[in-house]
Protein backbone atom coordinates (compact mmCIF):
# COMPACT_ATOMS: atom_id res chain seq x y z
CA UNK A 1 0.00 0.00 0.00
CA UNK A 2 1.46 3.23 -1.14
CA UNK A 3 0.64 6.04 1.30
CA UNK A 4 1.45 8.65 -1.26
CA UNK A 5 -0.80 7.16 -3.95
CA UNK A 6 -3.39 9.78 -3.03
CA UNK A 7 -1.15 12.45 -4.55
CA UNK A 8 -1.03 10.47 -7.78
CA UNK A 9 -4.83 10.51 -7.92
CA UNK A 10 -4.92 14.30 -7.70
CA UNK A 11 -2.00 14.64 -10.12
CA UNK A 12 -3.69 12.40 -12.70
CA UNK A 13 -6.81 14.57 -12.50
CA UNK A 14 -4.78 17.77 -12.88
CA UNK A 15 -3.11 16.33 -15.96
CA UNK A 16 -6.40 15.18 -17.46
CA UNK A 17 -8.08 18.53 -16.92
CA UNK A 18 -5.10 20.28 -18.43
CA UNK A 19 -5.43 18.03 -21.49
CA UNK A 20 -9.06 19.05 -21.76
CA UNK A 21 -8.02 22.69 -21.50
CA UNK A 22 -5.58 22.13 -24.39
CA UNK A 23 -8.30 20.83 -26.69
CA UNK A 24 -10.53 23.75 -25.75
CA UNK A 25 -7.69 26.16 -26.53
CA UNK A 26 -7.16 24.64 -29.97
CA UNK A 27 -10.89 24.72 -30.65
CA UNK A 28 -10.98 28.41 -29.78
CA UNK A 29 -7.89 29.15 -31.85
CA UNK A 30 -9.22 27.34 -34.90
CA UNK A 31 -12.71 28.76 -34.91
CA UNK A 32 -12.23 30.02 -38.48
CA UNK A 33 -9.71 27.51 -39.88
CA UNK A 34 -10.99 26.24 -43.21
CA UNK A 35 -7.90 24.20 -44.05
CA UNK A 36 -6.25 21.41 -42.07
CA UNK A 37 -3.49 18.91 -42.74
CA UNK A 38 -6.03 16.15 -43.19
CA UNK A 39 -8.01 18.30 -45.61
CA UNK A 40 -11.29 20.09 -45.11
CA UNK A 41 -12.13 22.53 -42.35
CA UNK A 42 -11.15 22.01 -38.70
CA UNK A 43 -13.61 19.97 -36.63
CA UNK A 44 -14.31 20.48 -32.96
CA UNK A 45 -12.25 18.23 -30.67
CA UNK A 46 -13.28 16.89 -27.31
CA UNK A 47 -11.65 14.62 -24.72
CA UNK A 48 -13.14 11.47 -23.19
CA UNK A 49 -12.04 10.63 -19.65
CA UNK A 50 -11.82 7.19 -18.13
CA UNK A 51 -10.86 5.92 -14.68
CA UNK A 52 -7.45 4.40 -14.15
CA UNK A 53 -6.36 2.31 -11.21
CA UNK A 54 -3.55 4.04 -9.34
CA UNK A 55 -2.41 1.35 -6.93
CA UNK A 56 -3.78 -2.10 -7.65
CA UNK A 57 -2.38 -3.53 -4.41
CA UNK A 58 -4.19 -0.99 -2.26
CA UNK A 59 -7.45 -2.47 -0.89
CA UNK A 60 -9.10 0.94 -1.15
CA UNK A 61 -10.43 1.55 -4.66
CA UNK A 62 -8.17 4.46 -5.49
CA UNK A 63 -9.14 5.67 -8.92
CA UNK A 64 -7.38 8.32 -10.88
CA UNK A 65 -8.42 9.63 -14.24
CA UNK A 66 -6.82 9.73 -17.65
CA UNK A 67 -7.65 11.05 -21.10
CA UNK A 68 -8.93 7.96 -22.89
CA UNK A 69 -9.28 9.48 -26.34
CA UNK A 70 -9.68 12.72 -28.23
CA UNK A 71 -12.79 12.64 -30.38
CA UNK A 72 -13.63 14.74 -33.39
CA UNK A 73 -17.13 16.12 -33.52
CA UNK A 74 -19.22 14.88 -36.45
CA UNK A 75 -21.79 17.64 -36.14
CA UNK A 76 -22.53 19.44 -39.43
CA UNK A 77 -20.20 22.29 -40.36
CA UNK A 78 -21.38 25.87 -40.45
CA UNK A 79 -22.14 27.18 -43.96
CA UNK A 80 -21.53 30.83 -44.64
CA UNK A 81 -22.13 32.62 -47.95
CA UNK A 82 -18.84 34.22 -48.96
CA UNK A 83 -18.15 33.85 -52.71
CA UNK A 84 -14.81 35.68 -52.46
CA UNK A 85 -13.33 33.13 -50.06
CA UNK A 86 -10.72 30.80 -51.64
CA UNK A 87 -12.43 27.76 -50.07
CA UNK A 88 -15.91 28.67 -51.25
CA UNK A 89 -17.75 26.02 -53.27
CA UNK A 90 -19.48 26.59 -56.62
CA UNK A 91 -22.57 28.09 -54.97
CA UNK A 92 -20.38 30.49 -53.01
CA UNK A 93 -20.71 28.83 -49.59
CA UNK A 94 -17.74 28.31 -47.24
CA UNK A 95 -17.74 25.49 -44.66
CA UNK A 96 -16.55 26.79 -41.32
CA UNK A 97 -15.62 24.66 -38.26
CA UNK A 98 -18.54 23.39 -36.16
CA UNK A 99 -17.40 25.27 -33.07
CA UNK A 100 -19.77 27.14 -30.80
CA UNK A 101 -17.83 29.68 -28.77
CA UNK A 102 -20.36 29.62 -25.91
CA UNK A 103 -20.04 25.87 -25.59
CA UNK A 104 -16.26 26.19 -25.44
CA UNK A 105 -16.45 28.89 -22.76
CA UNK A 106 -18.72 26.74 -20.59
CA UNK A 107 -16.41 23.75 -21.05
CA UNK A 108 -13.46 25.89 -20.13
CA UNK A 109 -15.11 27.05 -16.92
CA UNK A 110 -15.94 23.46 -15.98
CA UNK A 111 -12.37 22.34 -16.63
CA UNK A 112 -11.05 25.22 -14.58
CA UNK A 113 -13.39 24.45 -11.64
CA UNK A 114 -12.44 20.79 -11.69
CA UNK A 115 -8.76 21.75 -11.77
CA UNK A 116 -9.21 24.02 -8.75
CA UNK A 117 -11.06 21.31 -6.84
CA UNK A 118 -8.17 18.91 -7.41
CA UNK A 119 -5.61 21.46 -6.29
CA UNK A 120 -7.65 21.87 -3.10
CA UNK A 121 -7.68 18.11 -2.63
CA UNK A 122 -3.94 17.94 -3.13
CA UNK A 123 -3.30 20.64 -0.53
CA UNK A 124 -5.67 19.04 1.93
CA UNK A 125 -3.89 15.69 1.60
CA UNK A 126 -0.56 17.41 2.10
CA UNK A 127 -1.79 19.13 5.26
CA UNK A 128 -3.09 15.86 6.64
CA UNK A 129 0.29 14.21 6.14
CA UNK A 130 2.08 17.15 7.74
CA UNK A 131 -0.29 16.99 10.68
CA UNK A 132 0.49 13.32 11.17
CA UNK A 133 4.19 14.16 11.26
CA UNK A 134 3.50 16.55 14.14
CA UNK A 135 2.07 13.76 16.33
CA UNK A 136 3.55 13.66 19.79
CA UNK A 137 5.57 16.80 19.33
CA UNK A 138 5.22 19.08 22.33
Amino acid at each position, binding site marked *: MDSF*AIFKVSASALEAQKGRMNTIASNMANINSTQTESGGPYRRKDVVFS*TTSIDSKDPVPLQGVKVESVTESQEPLKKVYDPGHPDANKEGFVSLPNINIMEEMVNMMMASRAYEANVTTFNMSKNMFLKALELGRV
Partner: protein
Amino acid sequence: MDKGFQILEQIIQTTTLRHKLLASNIANVDTPGYKAKDLPFNTVLKDQVMGLSRTDANHLAGSPVQAGVGDVKDEERAPWEDGNNVSLDTELSRMTENALLYEAGTTLLSKKIQMYKNALKR
Protein backbone atom coordinates in the same frame (compact mmCIF):
# COMPACT_ATOMS: atom_id res chain seq x y z
CA MET B 1 -3.35 1.89 28.43
CA ASP B 2 -6.75 3.42 28.16
CA LYS B 3 -8.92 2.84 25.15
CA GLY B 4 -8.58 6.43 24.02
CA PHE B 5 -5.55 5.65 21.94
CA GLN B 6 -7.39 2.88 20.18
CA ILE B 7 -10.37 5.05 19.34
CA LEU B 8 -8.22 7.93 18.14
CA GLU B 9 -6.29 5.54 15.96
CA GLN B 10 -9.56 4.32 14.49
CA ILE B 11 -10.67 7.87 13.81
CA ILE B 12 -7.42 8.69 12.05
CA GLN B 13 -7.51 5.50 10.02
CA THR B 14 -11.12 5.89 8.99
CA THR B 15 -10.76 9.55 8.04
CA THR B 16 -7.68 8.68 5.97
CA LEU B 17 -9.64 6.00 4.15
CA ARG B 18 -12.54 8.35 3.54
CA HIS B 19 -10.21 11.07 2.31
CA LYS B 20 -8.89 8.70 -0.33
CA LEU B 21 -12.39 7.89 -1.53
CA LEU B 22 -13.38 11.56 -1.71
CA ALA B 23 -10.18 12.40 -3.59
CA SER B 24 -11.00 9.69 -6.15
CA ASN B 25 -14.51 11.12 -6.52
CA ILE B 26 -13.19 14.62 -7.14
CA ALA B 27 -10.62 13.35 -9.64
CA ASN B 28 -13.38 11.59 -11.59
CA VAL B 29 -15.85 14.46 -11.65
CA ASP B 30 -16.05 14.30 -15.45
CA THR B 31 -15.52 10.60 -16.11
CA PRO B 32 -18.51 9.05 -17.88
CA GLY B 33 -20.12 6.22 -15.94
CA TYR B 34 -18.19 6.82 -12.70
CA LYS B 35 -20.17 6.27 -9.48
CA ALA B 36 -19.24 8.32 -6.41
CA LYS B 37 -18.12 6.29 -3.41
CA ASP B 38 -18.28 7.06 0.27
CA LEU B 39 -17.85 5.48 3.68
CA PRO B 40 -20.84 5.59 6.06
CA PHE B 41 -18.65 7.04 8.78
CA ASN B 42 -21.20 7.80 11.50
CA THR B 43 -22.49 4.28 11.99
CA VAL B 44 -19.00 2.90 12.04
CA LEU B 45 -17.89 5.35 14.68
CA LYS B 46 -21.01 4.90 16.80
CA ASP B 47 -20.45 1.14 17.03
CA GLN B 48 -16.95 1.81 18.20
CA VAL B 49 -17.93 4.27 20.93
CA MET B 50 -20.90 2.18 22.07
CA GLY B 51 -18.55 -0.72 22.59
CA LEU B 52 -17.08 1.11 25.57
CA SER B 53 -20.09 1.08 27.91
CA ARG B 54 -19.78 -2.20 29.75
CA THR B 55 -21.35 -2.05 33.17
CA ASP B 56 -21.61 -5.75 33.95
CA ALA B 57 -19.15 -8.59 33.58
CA ASN B 58 -21.81 -10.57 31.73
CA HIS B 59 -22.03 -7.98 28.99
CA LEU B 60 -20.27 -8.83 25.81
CA ALA B 61 -17.12 -6.86 25.35
CA GLY B 62 -17.45 -4.34 22.57
CA SER B 63 -15.29 -5.51 19.78
CA PRO B 64 -13.48 -2.74 17.99
CA VAL B 65 -15.22 -2.08 14.73
CA GLN B 66 -12.94 -0.95 12.01
CA ALA B 67 -14.18 0.70 8.91
CA GLY B 68 -12.74 -1.25 6.08
CA VAL B 69 -12.97 -1.61 2.37
CA GLY B 70 -16.14 -3.66 2.80
CA ASP B 71 -18.02 -0.63 4.15
CA VAL B 72 -17.42 1.44 1.03
CA LYS B 73 -20.70 2.17 -0.69
CA ASP B 74 -21.68 3.66 -4.00
CA GLU B 75 -23.53 6.94 -3.69
CA GLU B 76 -27.22 6.71 -4.52
CA ARG B 77 -27.52 10.15 -6.07
CA ALA B 78 -29.27 10.27 -9.47
CA PRO B 79 -26.67 10.27 -12.25
CA TRP B 80 -26.19 12.83 -15.00
CA GLU B 81 -26.81 11.79 -18.58
CA ASP B 82 -23.29 10.40 -18.90
CA GLY B 83 -23.89 8.04 -15.97
CA ASN B 84 -21.66 10.02 -13.59
CA ASN B 85 -23.16 11.00 -10.24
CA VAL B 86 -20.38 13.03 -8.61
CA SER B 87 -21.47 16.35 -7.13
CA LEU B 88 -18.37 18.49 -6.82
CA ASP B 89 -19.70 20.75 -4.06
CA THR B 90 -20.91 17.86 -1.92
CA GLU B 91 -17.59 16.08 -2.27
CA LEU B 92 -15.59 19.19 -1.40
CA SER B 93 -17.68 19.98 1.66
CA ARG B 94 -17.42 16.37 2.82
CA MET B 95 -13.69 16.46 2.33
CA THR B 96 -13.36 19.64 4.41
CA GLU B 97 -15.49 18.11 7.15
CA ASN B 98 -13.47 14.92 7.04
CA ALA B 99 -10.16 16.78 7.18
CA LEU B 100 -11.39 18.67 10.25
CA LEU B 101 -12.27 15.42 11.97
CA TYR B 102 -8.83 14.08 11.09
CA GLU B 103 -7.25 17.18 12.55
CA ALA B 104 -9.33 16.81 15.70
CA GLY B 105 -8.18 13.20 15.98
CA THR B 106 -4.50 14.01 15.57
CA THR B 107 -4.73 16.98 17.95
CA LEU B 108 -6.36 14.84 20.62
CA LEU B 109 -3.79 12.11 20.13
CA SER B 110 -0.98 14.64 20.49
CA LYS B 111 -2.56 15.94 23.68
CA LYS B 112 -2.90 12.45 25.04
CA ILE B 113 0.73 11.68 24.37
CA GLN B 114 1.61 14.96 26.01
CA MET B 115 -0.41 14.04 29.09
CA TYR B 116 1.44 10.75 29.47
CA LYS B 117 4.74 12.54 29.01
CA ASN B 118 3.80 14.99 31.76
CA ALA B 119 2.79 12.19 34.09
CA LEU B 120 6.13 10.46 33.55
CA LYS B 121 8.14 13.56 34.38
CA ARG B 122 7.94 13.20 38.15
